[in-house]
Every structure is written in structure tokens, then in C-alpha cells.
């Protein structure tokens, strides 16, 4: 079973994303901050990481740098609440998705990562 890591400090958001992903057959784990996220990413292999760009913990650049070096193969989608947040210019090589995410957008992300049928 593909495992998806949801890293977001918003409990409600994690809850609904977990529900949506579990319904689609994924194993879901949650991290409420950057430190927890990095800990979990180091502990096991995930098929996808959905990461809040603005959550507490290490700075975005540091997280991105960690991902590039430690988990270069992990598909990561940066969730952002703002249309043109500076992090896009800070870490331009990351994949981004704008909140609010709806089911259509979520499915597109999963398809993009090759985790469900569709494009890619």
C-alpha cells in the first residue's frame, strides 16, 4: 500500500485529507510540524509527501534542501495558502499546489505522482 505523509499544522486539514486519501486506498501518516515531518520521512519510505509550505519547524529552504539531499526521489507537493508566496521563488524546483485543495485537485496531484490512474 502506498503511504502518503501529510505535513501540515492544521489539524482539520490533516483530518479531511486523511479521510480523502484513505478512501482512495492510501496509508496516511501525519506530521504537525517540520521536525515531525523530517523524522517520519527518515523513518520509512513514502510514495508522496504533501507538505504545508508555512508550517512551524525548520525554514522552508532548509526543508527543501533536506529533501533534495536526503530524499531526492520522494515526490513532494508543497501546499500553499497564498497565490504567489515568496517560497516559490525561494525553492523554485518544488511542485506547488494552491489551497484550498478540493477533491479534483487532490486527484490531479495523485495522478501526477502516478499513484492513481490518469495522466502521467
Amino acid at each position: 500500500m502506498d503511504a502518503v505523509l501529510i505535513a501540515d499544522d492544521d489539524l482539520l486539514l490533516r483530518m479531511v485529507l486523511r479521510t480523502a486519501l484513505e478512501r482512495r486506498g492510501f496509508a496516511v501518516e501525519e506530521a504537525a510540524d517540520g521536525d515531525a515531518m523530517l523524522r517520519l520521512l527518515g523513518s520509512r519510505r513514502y510514495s508522496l509527501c504533501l507538505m504545508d509550505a508555512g508550517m512551524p519547524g525548520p525554514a522552508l529552504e532548509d526543508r527543501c534542501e533536506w529533501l533534495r539531499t536526503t530524499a531526492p526521489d520522494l515526490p513532494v507537493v508543497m501546499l500553499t495558502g497564498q497565490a504567489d508566496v515568496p517560497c516559490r521563488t525561494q525553492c523554485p524546483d518544488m511542485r506547488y499546489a494552491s489551497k484550498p485543495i478540493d477533491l479534483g485537485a487532490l486527484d490531479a496531484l495523485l495522478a501526477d505522482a502516478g499513484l492513481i490512474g490518469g495522466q502521467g
Partner: protein
Amino acid sequence: MKAAQLSAAPAAELAARAARLLGAAAWSYDADSGIFRTSGSFTTVFGEGDESAAVLSETLALLPEPQRSVLRLSLEHCLSTGEPFDFTTALGGPTGRERQVRYVGEAVRDEDGEVTGAAGAVHDVTPILAQASSRDILEEHVRSRLDQMPTGMAFLGPDWRFTYINESAQRYLQRPGAVLLGGVLWELFPEIEGTAFGIAYRRAMEDRVVASVRGYFAPIAMWFLVTAYPVGEGIGFHVQDVTDDQRNVERLEESAGRLRAQAALLDAARDAMHVRTLEGEILYWNAGAERVYGWAAESMVGRTVCGLVAADRSAYDAAMETTLRTGHWSGELAMRTRDGRTILVDCRWQLTSAEDGHVSAVFAVESDITEMRHAEQERYRAQRMESLGVLAGGIAHDLNNVLTPVLLSAQLLGDSVRDPQEVELLGSIEAGARRGADLIRQVLLFARGEEAERRVLDVDSLLAELADFCRKTAPRSIDVEFLAPSRPLRVTADRTQLMQVLVNLVTNAVDAMPGGGALTIGAAPVDGGRGRVGFTVEDTGHGMDAEVCGRIFEPFYSTKGPGRGTGLGLPTSLAIARRHDGGIDVVSAPGRGSRFTLWLPAADAPADSGEGIRPTPQEAPAGAGLLVLVVDDEEPVRDAVRRVLETHGYRTVEAADGRAGLELLERCEASGDPVAAVVIDLMMPVLGGANTLDRIRSERPELPVILTSGFDPSAGNESRPADAAVRFLRKPFAEAELLGLLGELRSRRRVLL
């Protein structure tokens, strides 16, 4: 001359009357008889009694001393010598007053010339003497006054000799009167000849005119004002010491010069400066005031300042009241210029006092701050926008976080809920969340401007979506009518942004009709069909006057009242329209509804397929500075590919053949700037595309590669095992195809490998 003659008829009576009136009397003395006769009026001179004839001794006895003795002696002298006499003597008259009596007499002779007596007159000269005395006093007074006068005065005879010179003149001429009197002017003061003073004297003397001259008299270092004028045969002149005056004049001229300089400074000042009386009459009006108000000083001085005051007379009066009470006032007033503009003026008013301390005028310095205030408002607006941007960015993240669970939950529940009513409720939740997200987007859009994602859109489908919105939101009291375009219309626009504008216009229209009305929405070609498409939203609501119409596109201007409008809807709409090379026009009148027209350039191309399907647009792939190696033997192709890639954020290195390409690949890796993707032409000299790909794969199995060829690429690829990191691109290829493939490979690299 006998007594009989005196009493002779009428002539004698006349003589007697004259004598009486003049206070005189006649007398005679006959030496033979010793009789002293007096005329009738004699007694009125000397006392009571009629005309008399008596022995001399008796008459003399009547007279008081010293008169008696003087008369006797004079008579005796006259009789003995024949010489006349004339004396005046004091007489204690009967009234006791001191009087002066003049006796004149002469000898009376017979035919032989022998003195036989004497005759004469006696005259009361008291009044005459009194007159003479007062003349003397007057003369003395005049003389002393003249001498004491600060003005020097002198008279010169026709021979230029001084006949009079007062003390001041003596002082000015620095010679005593004794030396000057009788002296000739030109001999005493040869240095005067030829000077302005000398010329004035000669003119008065020779031309008999009054000549005035102000000049400096060097010998005594003084300034004099001299006036020479003809007097009798000679001349007179006044000399006034005007040395002090002259200094005053010089001071005045100096201060006048300073004033002129100050006036020039005042005129050069940007500020309007004026002085006005407490009643408002303009006394002074500088050039700045002319510049500010348009009125020239000539037309303002003497007029009242109230002519300037704009509509708010009460504000002016209040300011004036404060000025009078506290001595000064500063603040802003709306004023009217000559050409009728209303300007905002920063005023500093100060009461000024005359030298006597009497408050007399208001000195006003006023600057036109209309422009400044406008710029200030612009600055504030920009600051507000900036704050809004920061605020919006700050809240957008949180709000989108809040909305995501709402949206997702509603959708997830939708999978299991079957009750149509509940489905509808879930739909409302979802729609609400989406509208919230749109709102955030709108604020972000206005505050920062957002890159529009332009597509060719069918106007019909836009109107259909709008109709759907109206059905859901418009109250029943409003009749909504759609006027479909007569033929298919297309525009190039960001669908979301365009809908936002239309929804905003519709919402405003609905809000303008709280009591219901008709809402007409339509789209039609404008400008005769080609070129532009106009979307009209028309209501029958309360309408707007010209002033409101002029302000509705200002940010934060809202007529909807606190808590209702953000004041951002129309400004954002206009901003969006302009970013689409379009605009918004409005026609409205109070009570007659409003018609808003959003116009956009028409699009010729067919509408993009799939528009509106993707709720969240995918981010377009961008180069992000990744290094791409381009290997192609044709330089124009390399150039074209490089241009495309660099335009979209990639960096490129180029090689003309496979071998050079591989060398470059290694060099880049060695330098720490590895190549992220390779674009290889299949048909190349030295090392063909396929061989190059093999070499690349031996070392770098995951490096994304795009193979380009003018031939069907599948032909040369049949024997090749499937390589996920390779894409084929057939020449000639479109920019989008190349970029799309690169993006695909990049995301694949991250997502799949």
C-alpha cells in the same frame, strides 16, 4: 488870523467838526492883548468847557504840569524867534487817564513881518501813539520770531547787499549779523557763485521768480533746502537745514530698496501672501497670490477677500473669528480661484498692528496644497494597498487552510449522502467555501495583481455561468433577463477573473435594487462587431449622480454603507478589465438606474477546449534556472531552442555534435553545475543522436533527454527498450511542445524515480 475868522460861517463849522472828530483843537495867541483863544472843541480835549478866550496866564493855569511849562516856553520861544514848535507831551486828562497831546504852533506876523502872536493846533495823539507803539511791539515780535525760527531768513537788496538776516541764517552762514548786514552776497560768499544755491538766487533776482533748491553745502557739510523769492526790488530767501531730512530720505530710500527687495522676495515666494483689513479689504497682494488665485494685484487691491472664499463661508468666518480672538489662525480652507476651481489652501493668518499698536490688518500666507493633498492621498492609498497586500497575504494562508477542510469534507460527504435535500446542503457548503476562496483571491488579486491565465472563452458559456449565479443569488423581487448575443462571440481572458468582474457587476446591480426591479444582462459586439465585445449589466435601481459616478472606481469608496461593501469590487474589476486590455464604462442618473459595460478585445481563435474543467489550474512548467544541453548541428535550430528555453527560465549550453555534447556534459558536472536535461538532434555528424543517447545512458540512466528529428522518431526507436526519461519531438516543433515535454520529464524525475 483873527478870532472872527474862526467863528466865520459854514466853512468854520466844518473845520470845527473835523477838529472835534479828530480830537484836535485850534488855538491862537495875540501878544498885544495877551488873549489865548481856543476853538470850541478845545475843551473836549482838555476837559469841560466851551470855546474860550482868556488871558494866557489863565489858560495856562488850567493846564497841568509839565504841559503848562512846555507850552509857555514853546510860545515864548516862538514869539521871540519866529520858529514853529511841535511837541508832544503827556497830559493828565480830566478822566485821569494818561494821554499824549501834541502841540504844533507857528508865529503869526503882521504886514511888516513882525511877530504879533502865534497860532496852532493841539491834538490828542494818544490813539496814534498807541498804534505806533503796537507796531513797534509787532515788529519786535516778528523780528524775534524770525530770529528764533530754525529757518534761516535773509533779505538782499537789488545790489545784493544783506538788508536783513535772522539768527538762524547767521548761524548757517557762520558769520555774525554785523558782518553780513550791508555786505554783498557774492563778496562774502564767493564760493556760492555757480552752485545750485547761487543759481537760485540769481533766478529770483533776475527772473523775479520763486526758485527752490535742495542741495549739499560742502563748506559746512550740511543739506539745505533754499527757497529764494523776489521781495520788493531785491530778494528774500529761506534756508532750511534738511541734513536730518536728507538722512531720513537716504534711510527711506534704503528701506524702500529693502522693501523692494523684500517685495521681490515676497513675489518670488511660492506662497500667496496678502494683507487685508479686518473688514477683508485687500491692501497687499503678492505675485504668489496671483499665481494661486489667478487674480492680479491690480484687480484685488481694494476689493474684499470674500470674493475668494469658496462655498464654505462659515469656515472662513470661523477662522477669522479665531484670528481676531487669538491673534492668529492656521488651517485649511477651500478657496475658489478666478477660473472657478476650488482649491485646498493651507492658511497662516496673523493679526498685525500699526506702529501705534492698533490692530489693523491680517497678514495671510496661503499655499495651494491641492496637488500636495492629492499626492498625499495617492501615497496613503498606495500605503493602504501595501498594507492590504501584507494583510491579505497574511490572512490568505490561514483562510485557505480553513476553507480546505470545509471544501473537502463537503465533497467527501457527497460520496455517501443520497438524500437530495442533504446533497443540496452539501452543495451550499461547497459553494460557500469556494466563494470564500474567491474572495481571498480577489483581495489578493487587487492588492498584488495576479498573473492572468488567458484563454479564448466563449461568451455564451460565460453568460450561462452568470445566469446560473443570478438564479442562485438574485432575490425573487428582481426580474433577470438575458440577452444572448446574436452570433457566437469570443474573448481572450482569464475565466475566473472575468467571471469575478461580471459577478461583481451583477451583485452591485442587485444591491442597487433593494425594492426589486429588472436586471438585464447581455453581451454584444461593440464598435461595429469586430474588435470588441461588450458585456452589459443594467439595473433599474436608484442610480448615481455624476459625483458618485466619478468616484466608484476609487478603492475603498463605497456607497453601500459600513460593513456592506469593501470598496474594492469595482476598482478590482476595472483593474482586471484593464489588464485584459479592456475597460468598464458606466451610464447612470439618480433614480434612473445604471448600466455598466465591461468591454474586452474580441478573440478570433476558437475557444480553448477543456476550459473550465480544471478547478485548480496546474502551474505551468517553468525552467527555474535548470541547465539544458542543446546538441544540434544546425545553428539556427540551436538558436531557436536556446531562445525558447531561456525565455522560460532555463539556462542552456550548446554543442554542434554528439561528441562535443558529451564533453560539455562532463565539464558541467565537473564544475558543479550539472545538466538537468538534454535536447539531442538524432541526425548529427561525428556522433549521431542515438549513439550520444547510449553514451549518456551508460552513466546517467535518469537524465531526461528529448530526441528531436525531422523523421518519424518511432522508426529509429523500435529496438530500443522503453526509456521513461526519453521523449521524442518531431521537427518542426512548437515552443509549447518542447516546454511541455521538458516539464513532463522534470516532474516525472521528481515524482517517479
